């Protein structure tokens, strides 16, 4: 463990961390561009097309604009907490990338380098913990704003995330019963040799997907920032890059949850109908990464597609869906999975 300090190991991990963080930031940046472009296309518009060819430089321009905006910190607000809020939102958003297997091992400088920052054997629980921490950024920021709309947004976000975490956890339990492991890496390896988990857990995936929408505060569950009733929700009082952090955190969350869903249910970096072992290791790792990214892009598109299709829920509808529909459904799914596994162990006899 930590006792044996291997310098090359540390450098390798540091490089990986930097790459993952940078990649999440860049992807989040381009997710904002994608969001605007997709929204435009779905509404028969053109979308950003001024900055650079096809508006490709638009996120850079947006970022620069946010940087140079005036910073406003409201009077009476706790200044420290006001800054802590967006920082925590950003931190927790980035952290979940630590346990995701981005690809198989690559062979480089005579070393086998795993494309995963940490293969902890409670990987999925780690993701879960990070997700549950994500609400603090919103709550602290909203409370420190000293604004009733912000506070409303924060409270909504908190109760929404807590409610949907339950269903998410239960749907995950069913998945864990199938795979028998909590390590994301092992799950991917299992799916490489067998079938993807979506075929074993279609209902579980649906529940997980809905909960992921809720956890990321995306439409149709974006009540925490419902602009027509709460102005901007929890980030009403925020300006400049602190607002940028909140918006960025949302997109990073979206990216990370897409990666998690791709890894859990769609084979991660697995390329379907291809036996990876037959080909060169490094190339396969690269293609695996690209396969993962393709799946992720599909998911991000789904997120945006849904955003521009389904209108926002009312708050009581949201709670009803969470507590009265999703949790019983997830419990049913769990029981069904358990029963089927038992039957299978008994060779399909009672």
């Amino acid at each position, binding site marked *: 463990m930590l006792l044996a300090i291997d310098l090359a190991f540390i450098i390798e991990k540091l490089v990986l961390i930097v790459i993952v963080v940078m990649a999440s930031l860049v992807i989040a940046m381009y997710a904002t561009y994608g969001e605007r472009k997709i929204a435009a*296309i*779905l*509404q*028969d*518009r*053109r979308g950003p*097309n001024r900055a650079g060819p096809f508006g490709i430089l638009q996120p850079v321009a947006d970022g620069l604009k946010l940087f140079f905006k005036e910073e406003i910190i409201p009077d009476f607000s706790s200044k420290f907490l006001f800054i802590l809020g967006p920082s925590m939102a950003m931190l927790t958003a980035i952290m979940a990338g630590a346990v995701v297997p981005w690809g198989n091992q690559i062979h480089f400088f005579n070393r086998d380098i795993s494309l995963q920052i940490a293969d902890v054997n409670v990987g999925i629980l780690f993701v879960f913990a990070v997700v549950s921490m994500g609400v603090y950024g919103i709550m602290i920021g909203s409370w420190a704003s000293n604004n009733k709309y912000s506070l409303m947004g924060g409270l909504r976000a908190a109760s929404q995330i807590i409610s949907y975490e339950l269903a998410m956890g239960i749907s995950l339990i069913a998945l864990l019963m199938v795979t028998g492991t909590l390590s994301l890496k092992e799950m991917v390896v299992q799916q490489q040799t067998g079938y993807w988990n979506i075929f074993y857990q279609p209902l579980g995936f649906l529940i997980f997907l809905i909960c992921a929408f809720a956890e990321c505060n995306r439409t149709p569950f974006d009540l925490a920032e419902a602009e027509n009733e709460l102005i901007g929700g929890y980030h009403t009082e925020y300006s400049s890059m602190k607002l940028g952090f909140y918006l960025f955190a949302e997109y990073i969350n979206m990216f990370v949850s897409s990666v998690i869903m791709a890894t859990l249910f769609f084979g991660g970096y697995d390329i379907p109908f291809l036996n990876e072992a037959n080909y060169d290791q490094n190339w396969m790792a690269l293609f695996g990464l690209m396969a993962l990214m393709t799946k992720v892009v599909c998911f991000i598109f789904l997120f945006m*597609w*849904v955003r*521009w*299709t*389904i209108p926002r829920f009312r708050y009581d509808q949201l709670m009803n869906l969470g507590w009265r529909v999703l949790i019983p459904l997830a419990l049913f799914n769990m029981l069904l999975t358990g029963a089927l596994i038992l039957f299978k162990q008994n060779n399909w006899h009672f």
Partner: protein
Amino acid sequence: MQALTNRLKEVDRRKMNFLERLYLIAIFKGMLITFSHIFKKKPTIDYPEKTRPFSPVFRGLHILNRDEAGRENCTACGLCAVACPAEAITMEAAERQVGEENLYREEKYAAKYEINMLRCIFCGLCEEACPKDAIYLSETFAPADYQRKQFIYNKEELLIPHPIENAEAYKKALGNRVKKETVN
């Protein structure tokens, strides 16, 4: 009552059955509808590069016309100001001095001519009132400025460029519309 359109739709208030209450099918249908819009033609025009063709009766910002020799047409008769329902036009007349015949077509001219573009409603009545063919509504529109007082256009801003000294700009300012009028 007779329906105004044939798109009238009766609200279905029957109790929904289980499948309908799941909303999954409805959501899926909605998603398909939005997805189909990806392939639709975009009605948006890339505005500054491409512009829509103007209608022949389009009324934009005013220009004060000159004749072929570059002399101002306006005689400061004040009919346009009288015709203006928004009272956006003010002017002061002056007498043409000897030696200014190449500047002004007639012996009276407008020493000061101002149009408040924030008051103007672009009705075109000034154009109709003018007996001397001096004022036209051009195809320029959407002026932008930083101060309100900049929107009171004075004579220098309104005058069309000189047709001989600055022929190109004159043509451009004349636009399609004025040409058509001259053809008629």
